[in-house]
């Protein structure tokens, strides 16, 4: 079972060196225990571009699709047997990156 662990930020900015180190330790643990699928960190929301090509004519707009105080700053995709396992890992993840996280099950996942 795969879960998306979204990292939620509130203008805290980039991770500090101490946070980065803690995240590395957590990532190593995910790898070692077979929970690792993939992970990534995102640039700030103001670097986002929205494209709408539903009608075959791509309309490009600057900025995130919705302005919010809280935004997605990064994510992990983890493999866990059930929600209790996922929540335990997510709690560790939240501690390591020093931010709130949200855990959500995947309906489908394509990748390795």
């Amino acid at each position, binding site marked *: *079972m795969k879960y998306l662990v979204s990292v939620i930020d509130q203008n805290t900015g980039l991770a500090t060196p101490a946070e980065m180190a803690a995240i590395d330790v957590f990532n190593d643990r995910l790898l070692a225990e077979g929970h690792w699928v993939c992970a990534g960190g995102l640039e700030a929301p103001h670097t986002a571009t929205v494209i709408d090509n539903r009608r075959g004519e791509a309309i490009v707009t600057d900025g995130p699709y919705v302005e919010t105080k809280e935004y997605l700053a990064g994510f992990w995709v983890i493999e866990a047997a059930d*929600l209790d396992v996922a929540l335990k890992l997510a709690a560790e993840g939240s501690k390591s990156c020093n931010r709130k996280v949200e855990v959500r*099950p995947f309906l489908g996942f394509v990748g390795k």
Partner: protein
Amino acid sequence: MSGNEAQAAVTEAHREEWARVVSALARRFGSLDVAEEAAAEAFAAAVARWPADGVPPNPGAWLTTTAKRKALDWIRRESKRGGKQQLAQMLSDGDPSEPVELIGDERLRLIFTCCHPALALEARVALALRLVAGLTMAEIAHAFLVQESTMGQRITRAKAKIRVARIPYRTPAAEDLPRRVSGVLEVLFLVFNEGYLATGPGQAQHRLGATGPQAGVAPKRDARRIGPAQSQPRPGSRAGARARNDPIRPGLTAAAIRLTRLVRSLMPEDGEVAGLLALMLLTEARRAARVAPNGELVPLGEQDRRAWDAALLAEGHQLVRERLAAGVAPGRYQILAAINAVHTSAPQPNETAWRKIVALYDQLLRLDPSPIVALNRAVAVAELEGPEVALAAIAPLQDALAGYHLYHATRAELLRRLGRNQQARAAYDRAIALAGNIAETAYLTRRRGQLLTPAAVSQQSQPPHGEHHVHVP
């Protein structure tokens, strides 16, 4: 066998066996939907057949076997209809002829799953009442003043989350157990409180213990619920069920006590489970004395103590003594039970051991330094050191408890006793505006009225025992 006897047997089986049947089926088929559906069908079959066929020698086994057969029928029907692989898997998963009842007691798993912290509190309450206590959707909807369809949707969504997000069907690991148990107790206590002092429509504040037998129990994070903000999702502020006019909903207190007894039988070593059961019993024991024939709330100090239920009191006191003898540092429910034990041990209100009560509140404040606990402590302090000291003690709570009716009610009583009638009246006004329970409103309105009459003057000259105790009725 008469129809009445059979009906009584079904009722008893429902009370004793419902959770066992649901939990055994949930374990066997890995689906709460199937378990609930099949258990309901099995009990319907009992209603239809027991009057004619007689009550089976082992009703629980009969119900479980019947439910299993219903579940298999249902799954076969569903999988034929929609080619649902998942359902087909349930069938192939293990031997269908395997006797479900041999799996053992699964009820604890069911309870922990229904009360999982990843579910919203109101969903946990609904699931526990439906799947563990066996209340019907209509009963739960009525108790929480919501439409049956709304309650049905709430339960369906919660079950869907359990399934899709894979909330596991198991008892928590030892290291998580205390936290998870306190989550279960929170659900049980909310059910009890809602039955004990029902909130009316449009009253978003004071849920979760704030109106309860001891307001101090509201967990810290729920303190915000006391505020005037209407932001909390509240089970049932809209519906027009007649329950809004029942100040007490005995069905809910009974369900809460039954569930807590069940949890206690499954976790006999847990002190907080025992504490919560004692707290409920000592509170329930006073039910008959709590509301006057005219529908008005009767505060503890004015209750007819002969109307208290002696058997419930004895059981509650016994549990409190057991916990004291255990010599383990008590948690909040045990302390609250002890406070109630002191109150209910006094033959007359003026014989209450207030010093003990203040000491217990001090202990509670160390665990939970919340303004509500401080408010309750101040009420006891008034008995020991007078209303002036108590008034000074609650002054710092004003900001935190501005939207909480019992803060204003307590203040009003203290001001009354100091003869500051004009301020008392303003405080009653505020309390009445905020109170959500009609019995409380009636009581507060009468108290305010007494400020205007000469009778109020003579009442003030009486010893002020107990009359302040609006929050421990």
